[in-house]
């Protein structure tokens, strides 16, 4: 299998962008990634586009607007992990020798408020069972019931991520908040308050992947930034039986031993990359809600089961700590454009590994992990190294 590297990254800031279409935003991100990689028209052999709400042939619209079509363009939907799924497909194809250079993009333009999803049956909506934040709240409540996590910890995650997001020009929210602000925001579903939930929004991100050592750059292009190795890009779905799984079943078994999809993906990603959680220097993880970040600590093996509150309290996961988590500000600061969120994490981590992350730089970062999980269930884990 051939090694795969990230040759270029591009991003359209996450936020609210009025009349800008998914095509407009995707074009911005793809142009940025192509320019960094020194790749132009004819310089890539396939494209994978992560999107959940973009509609038919989103990837074709973006690349068509750039006059760069003819190669296979595949839209990939895997909920919050759509970008991870696109990365998995692209990197596998390069590793297998099918392509040398592939564009991976993610784009989304989401409505405000609770997201309506075709995932639920109409009767589930009618019965009030399609209440997405309520499932997040039940997961949070179980975490609190089975570990030392309190509502103060949930607020502390938001305070941490919003503080880190101040340094990210691509984030939607760039103002610090206090725990009092968070706990004083409207109660959505006990124990989750409004500011503990990320905002669905709009944005795009893209990367150019290529076979390590291959000369994908067009003649005359600059040397560009040092490449970052894509050491693993893994997608997994859920196993049956867990009632609070992101697959949102209506029932599950009285069995707490079902391995969550994040853990399934992480185990494979660590093995592929030849690293363990103790080797990581920086992590971007799914913080759809504040409790989800703490759950991710456990599911990714960043701490022992039940020890997420201790890890947060220790300061290890804050910028300046042993293993900063969500230095970009996370989805709590950036907002969550579903199809773009995983690639947004990868853009952040490539910047971190190149030493280009400015005020939020993790000094000396060489091993980074990106994690997304959501409806399906889909869980994506990506490991990047330099």
């Amino acid at each position, binding site marked *: 299998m051939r090694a795969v590297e990230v040759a270029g990254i591009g991003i359209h800031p996450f936020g609210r962008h009025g009349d800008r279409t998914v095509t407009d935003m995707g074009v911005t991100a793809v142009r940025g990634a192509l320019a960094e990689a020194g790749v132009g028209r004819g310089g890539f052999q396939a494209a994978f586009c992560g999107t959940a709400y973009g509609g038919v042939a989103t990837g074709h619209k973006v690349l068509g607007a750039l006059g760069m079509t003819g190669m296979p363009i595949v839209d990939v939907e895997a909920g919050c992990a759509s970008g991870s799924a696109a990365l998995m497909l692209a990197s596998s194809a390069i590793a297998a020798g099918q392509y040398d250079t592939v564009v991976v993009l993610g784009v989304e333009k989401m409505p405000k408020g609770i997201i309506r999803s075709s995932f639920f049956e109409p009767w589930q909506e*009618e*019965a*009030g069972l399609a209440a*997405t934040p*309520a499932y997040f709240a039940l997961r949070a409540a179980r975490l609190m019931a089975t570990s030392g996590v309190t509502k103060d910890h949930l607020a502390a995650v938001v305070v941490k991520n919003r503080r880190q997001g101040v340094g990210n020009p691509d984030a939607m929210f760039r103002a610090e908040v206090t725990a009092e602000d968070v706990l004083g925001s409207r109660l959505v579903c*006990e124990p989750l308050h409004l500011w503990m939930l990320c905002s669905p929004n709009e944005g795009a991100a893209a990367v150019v992947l290529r076979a390590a050592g291959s000369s994908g750059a067009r003649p005359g292009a600059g040397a560009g930034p040092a490449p970052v190795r894509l050491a693993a890009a893994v997608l997994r779905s859920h196993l049956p039986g867990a009632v609070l799984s992101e697959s949102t079943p209506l*029932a599950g078994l*009285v069995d707490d031993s079902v391995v969550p999809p994040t853990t399934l993906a992480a185990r494979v990603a660590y093995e592929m990359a030849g690293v363990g959680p103790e080797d990581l220097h920086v992590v971007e993880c799914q913080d759809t809600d504040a409790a989800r970040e703490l759950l991710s600590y456990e599911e990714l093996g960043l701490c022992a089961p039940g020890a997420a509150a201790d890890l947060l309290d220790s300061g290890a996961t804050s910028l300046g700590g042993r293993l900063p988590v969500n230095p970009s500000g996370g989805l709590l600061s950036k907002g969550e454009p579903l199809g773009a969120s995983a690639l947004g994490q990868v853009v952040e981590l490539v910047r971190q590994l190149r030493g280009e992350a400015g005020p939020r730089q993790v000094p000396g970062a060489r091993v980074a992990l990106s994690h997304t999980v959501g409806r399906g269930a889909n869980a994506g884990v990506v490991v990047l190294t330099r």
Partner: protein
Amino acid sequence: MPVRAGLFVEGPPPALLAGHCRGCANHHFPRQPVCPYCSAETVDEVLLRGPGRLWVHTAVTAAPPGYEGEVPYGFGVVELPEGLRVVGRLTEAEPARLRPGQPMVLAVVPLHVDDEGREVLTYAFAPGDTEPRDR
């Protein structure tokens, strides 16, 4: 009328229409032709009447997409003696008035009145004082 056919029987007493797999002996809900745990096609329909115990709960304070009933409403998971954890509405919308582990009975509750004037019903769990039988 039920919000969906094949989900529950109105009773009294009400019951959930669940599946029981002859292959792995697990229950699932709603009933499906294939067992979601072991893929066996030997699934029998069974009625689950409760009572159960509250496992985790919250309340929904804003109407989610496609929902026309009242808010707030309770939302949670109840463990049934058959080894099944079931997601459902709770009749108690104030989380502080419920505690995990307390007995919950099955109920059928109105959601809203549809365009043709029919009352749409769903299953829900209500606080009860009947102790569930041991598994």
